[in-house]
Structure formats: C-alpha cells, structure tokens
C-alpha cells in the first residue's frame, strides 16, 4: 500500500460507524458545553441580536429608540457617498490578502515542520512575536518600515522597487497591498503556530511510511500533510475572510500617522465607526455591520459546504 493510501486509510479509519452505546452521550455533551453556551449567549448571541435590533432604531440623544427607524438606517448607510468606495477597497483588499495569507502561512508551516530543530524553533519564534506588537508601536513600525529613507528595507525599496520617497509607496492604489503586509506581519505567526501544532498531530507512522515508500518532501507535503490539515485550512480561510471583511484597526492606526493620505472612511468598518461615533448614529453603524456580517457568513457557508467542515463521524452527517 502506498503512503498516500495509508494516510487515507488512517483518516477514514475513524469513519466506521459504531452502534450507539447503551449510555447515550447526549446528556454528557450538554454538561460539557453548558458553561460555554452561557458565555456564548451572554457575549455573542445576545449582543449580536441587540445590535441587529439597533439597526432598526432611531437615535435620540445618542440612545437607540428601538424599531423607530424602519429601514432608514440601512438607506443612510448604503447611500452614503463613501459606501461604494469602502466596499471597493474591501474587495481589493480581500482579493490580495486572503490568498497571500493562506498560501504564506501554509507554506511556512510546512517548511518549519519539514525539519525539526533549533533553526526551525528560532524561526517560529520570530514569525510569532510580531503578533504582540500593537497600538502606537505598530504605527511607528509601519511609518518607518514603509519610508525608503529610514527603513531597514530601504535598499530593497529603493533598488528593487524604485520607491524614492514614502509617498511613492504609501499611496491610494497601494493601500490594499500595504494592509496585506501589515496584517500578515501581525497575524501570520499565530496561524503558523496553529498549523504547526496541527502538523505535529499527524501520526509519525504515516509520515515514515510515506518516506519509506519514496515520497520526497514536496510530495509528502502536498499529498499527505496538506490534506490531513484541511480542516484547519478551511478554518483559517473562513476567519481570514471574515476578519479581513472587518478590516479596521490597521487603517485606523495608519490614518493617524502624520502626512497620511489614508481616508478615515477607507474600510466599511471604519465608515461604520464614523457613523457611530462622529454622527452618533449607532443605527447606521449597526446596519453596516449587519451587511459585513452577511458577507462574512455567506463566505463561511460556502467554505464549510465545500470542505464539509462540520461533518464528524459521530454526527452521522
């Protein structure tokens, strides 16, 4: 049996249906999940529903008067002169950031896993630590890294890309790419750590069997490892897609840098923030959030369906 078949067998080995046991796991399942469900209701579903209600509310003195606005908040949000360009920016950003994110993280995780050792451990740490940089320090880093005159990457920016001044690089048409770089810098490390952990969970026997059968590292990666961590990839795909739909912190921070030409309403979430806190219109902000939610959920739905993420052998689905 080839290594590939071994792997598939191992994966599918667990799909043998067992007869229901005498003691149904039903009650126990509820017990394990109860504390989480309480939190889910209190901090997830409850506020979410309230936000949904706010989207139909009129604001008086900054307080939502439920259900008095009908659909006018949605009209306000979607007809705003900044809405169209914000959506456009979001799409441009998604088209770049999601593929780059997935491919980059999977590639690095595979490479790191290919060979254990100190080098791998050091690299893993270096990839992960930037995720801890936030706030003013992240703005500072972005300001300096993107300025060819003061950046450690200056040679690269000048020589290879021909950027002489910061304003050559930091300009409207480059923002989707710049934000991809920043979000990858800050976010890739966490995912790499997760994938690395997932790869570590692959049975040694499968890998060894594959090597004995003659798989080189590339085949091992593509035919064995990636399929076995597919649920994690799907998970990352969903969250990266949804998270990038909500892009807020990075443009908000960079926009505060001196000389920044970034609009404070660049991303849809920023526009929502402005509705809420400049205009005091929580209703329009909630309406916009609902739209972003729908987009994210549709994307998640598609990915889940395609990858059957929710199917486990126990559920029999």
């Amino acid at each position, binding site marked *: 049996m080839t290594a590939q078949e071994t792997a598939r067998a191992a994966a599918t080995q667990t799909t043998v249906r067992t007869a229901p046991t005498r003691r149904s796991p039903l009650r126990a399942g509820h017990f394990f999940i109860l504390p989480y469900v309480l939190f889910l209701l209190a901090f997830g579903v409850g506020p979410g529903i309230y936000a949904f209600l706010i989207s139909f509310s009129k604001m008086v003195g900054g307080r939502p008067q439920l259900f008095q606005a009908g659909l006018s908040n949605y009209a306000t949000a979607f007809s705003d002169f900044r809405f169209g360009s914000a959506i456009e920016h979001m799409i441009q950003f998604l088209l770049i950031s999601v593929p780059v994110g997935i491919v980059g993280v999977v590639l690095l995780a595979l490479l790191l896993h290919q060979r254990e050792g100190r080098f791998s451990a050091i690299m893993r740490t270096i990839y992960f630590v930037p995720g801890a940089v936030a706030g003013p320090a992240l703005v500072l880093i972005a300001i300096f890294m993107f300025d060819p005159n003061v950046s450690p990457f200056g040679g690269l920016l000048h020589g290879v890309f021909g950027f002489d001044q910061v304003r050559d690089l930091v300009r409207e048409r480059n923002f989707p790419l710049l934000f991809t770089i920043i979000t990858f810098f800050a976010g890739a490390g966490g995912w790499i750590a997760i994938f690395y952990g997932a790869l570590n969970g692959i049975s040694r026997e499968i890998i060894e069997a594959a090597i004995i059968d003659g798989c080189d590292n590339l085949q091992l990666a593509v035919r064995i490892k990636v399929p076995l961590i597919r649920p994690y990839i799907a998970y990352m795909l969903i969250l990266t897609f949804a998270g990038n739909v909500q892009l807020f912190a990075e443009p908000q921070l960079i926009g505060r840098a001196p000389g920044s030409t970034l609009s404070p309403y660049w991303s849809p979430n920023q526009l929502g923030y402005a509705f809420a*806190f400049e205009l005091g219109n929580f209703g329009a902000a909630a309406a916009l959030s609902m739209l972003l939610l729908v987009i994210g959920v549709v994307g998640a739905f598609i990915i889940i369906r395609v990858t059957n993420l929710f199917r486990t052998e126990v559920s029999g689905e």
Partner: protein
Amino acid sequence: MKKQFLYSLTVFVLLISLSVPALAQEGTPILVWIDTTRQAAVDAYLAAHPENASLIQVEIVDRAEFSQKVLLFNNVGSGWPDVVFAEPEIIATVAGEQHDYPLDLTPYVSADILDNFADGANAPCTTPDGQLLCLRNDLAQMVLWYDAPLMAEYGYDVPTTWEEYEALGNQVAAEHPGTIIGAFGDDQGMHTYLWGSRCPVAQLVDATTVYINTADPTCTRAATMVDNLLANGSMVALSPFDPAFVQLVTDGKLLMLPAASWYGEYVFGGKEDSLYYQAADGRLGVAAPLRWSGEDTAWTGAQGGSSWAVSKHSTNPTLAAEFVVFVTTADAYQGTAPTLPAYEPAATVWAQTLASNGVYAFDPFPVLQSSATLIDPLWGNVRFSRASAFNTVVIPALQDGQTVVEAMPVFQEQLVNLAQSIGYTVVTSR
C-alpha cells in the same frame, strides 16, 4: 395653630430643599479628563486651591476617543467627566445633537476675563448663536519662521506680503536653487496658505449652514501662488515632518517656513534631540504673518491649539467652570505652559520661558503676541474635518501630477459631501 405649624413646616422644607442642591454643589467632586501634558495644570490648580484637593479627580485619557465615550455615557446616563481638555474641533463634534455634551460657559465667565483673551481666540469655541462652549488653552497661529543667518548671507529682506513671498521664491529658485521657503505636503499647507488667505474651505454661516467655495478668488490666489512655487522648486510637496524634509533642513536648505507658533520650541527646538536645529545658536528668526497686498489685515491660519470644556451633566458646574477659568488664565499654570497661552496677561508672563532658549536670533514674543489676534475667525468650528478632506483628496491629486488649482474642484466635492453627511446645509455662494 396647626395651620401655622404646617405653614412653617412647608417653608422650612422648601428652604432646605432649595439649599440642599447648593450644598451638594459645593461639595460634589468633579472629574477632570486631561492628557499627560496637562497634569501640570491640575497640579497648579491644587497648589493654588489646596482646599479643593478632595474635590478634584483626574483621569488621563486619549481625547481622540472622547466622542465615543460621550455616547456610551449618554446610553447609561452617567460617567461624563465634568471637565475635559480637547481641541475645539472635538468639542464641536460632541456639541452635536446626539452627543450634546458641552455646557454654555457664558454665565460662568465674566466679561472682563473674556476680554483679556486674545481677540478671536475663543471664536472656535463660540457657536453662531452665542454660546461659549469652551475656553481656549493656547494658540497655534501661523507665523513666518526663517533662518536669520542664511537670510543675511543671501542678502534678502524678510517679506511682509504674500506677493513679496512669491517674488522671493522666484528669486531663490534663480539664485540659490534647492533652497526652500515653504511646505505643501499635508494639511499644514491648507492651514497656512488657504486659511491664511481666508479661502472658504468651509465657513460656518449658522448652526446648520456651511459656506464652501474653493473656487473663490481668495482660494485661487493662494493656490496659484503655491503652484508657482512648487513648480520652481522653492516649495516642496512634503510634510514638515517627513524625513526627507528634515534632511533638507539638516542640509541647510530651509530658508523660511510659514508654520505654527509652537514650531519654535518644539520643531526647530535648539536642543540635542530636536528635529530641525540641534544647537542653540541664535539661528531662528520669526516675522509676522504675511498679508495679501491691498488688504489691511494679515489674517493667518493656525494648526493646533486646544481648549477646556465643561459638561452639561455636571453636578458641580460652578467648581468645574472655576477650574477651567483658572487653568486657562492663571499665571501659575499658563505662565509656564508648553505653548503660547490664549490669555494675554498670562502670555506676557509666558514670554519669559522663551528667554532661556538660545535658538532664537531675537526675542520672538512680540511677533507671537501680535499675531495671536490675527487668526481668521471666519472658518469657525464645523463638525467635520477639513484636514481629512484635504489629505485624502488634494494631496493624492498633487502626487498624481495635478496642480493645486486643478485639485480645487474635487476638494470642493469632497467637502460638500462631508458637510452634508454630517447634516449641514451647504451654500456655495454668498
């Protein structure tokens, strides 16, 4: 008997109930929200009024998020700070219908005190219907900074009108190419050249109406001048804080720069870690803002300058207003404040802090004092950001190769859209 008793009881209760709020007012602590730099203001107040020490609570906050906090507090009915330190722009935002935060200070500030503020200083704090929503802390008017030794070396006279300024730009372009006399790379350019020309980027007509007309001759004359100077290289399309601009200064290319009054201490500096001049060698000169010839007044713009406001929900407005009046007028604080006080008597005391800085070629205070009253009040305090419209529309247009004049129409469009989205009615002619 009973009737009399009841009558006196009623009067007694009424008197008590009327005086209780007054008692409560005297004793209720106030919450003051400041930034780190203003801790000195609170310290100065407590030094002067130690009897109120238990009544002053202080929190350090990031005032950029203040409007968010106000809305959250509106929703729970409590939590507003009694006093806040924030720019008049922020105060204008939280004066909006949904926020409704600032208290009208007119009953709490005597006419004498108001008169002693520099003319026009409190204009951004005053609503069209006469409410005084804040008191100015400091002023940041544009003045003309210049490199005195370099001016002497090149043999130029300091210009007094914009026409002379432009002529000087033409001259240096011909005689000393590479020399810089101005910057136009971010909203500092708008505040200097457009506001200084009284260009109606957005002028507050009344509480709900804004006049926006970037095609006005006052705008065109400034834009044309800037275009000319950008073209001949005596003005650069850089922010004064861009490292490339700082490099020009280090290379000795900066001849003059119309910029805010606080540039002297904090940008030119004269200290080891200052951005422009690292030595206190008497290099920095300053001159009055420029005026357009044919006009009497050298109106000028500003960039910065903050204020103090009191909450409408304050349970002790007397103390809060007293605190605000103190920190804006007292020599004990403003005399040693970081930037030019808006209150003229305190400013005179503040002048002494400049004496110790050897970066100045001569005492800059007379110029600072006289120019403080020249900030054009017509712009008024609108609830949207002119600067963000400028930075997101005009600067990219310049980067794409357009001239300032060519960028004015898109600037107009963006301003009108922003104003309308906030709820203003826009007029484009007057």
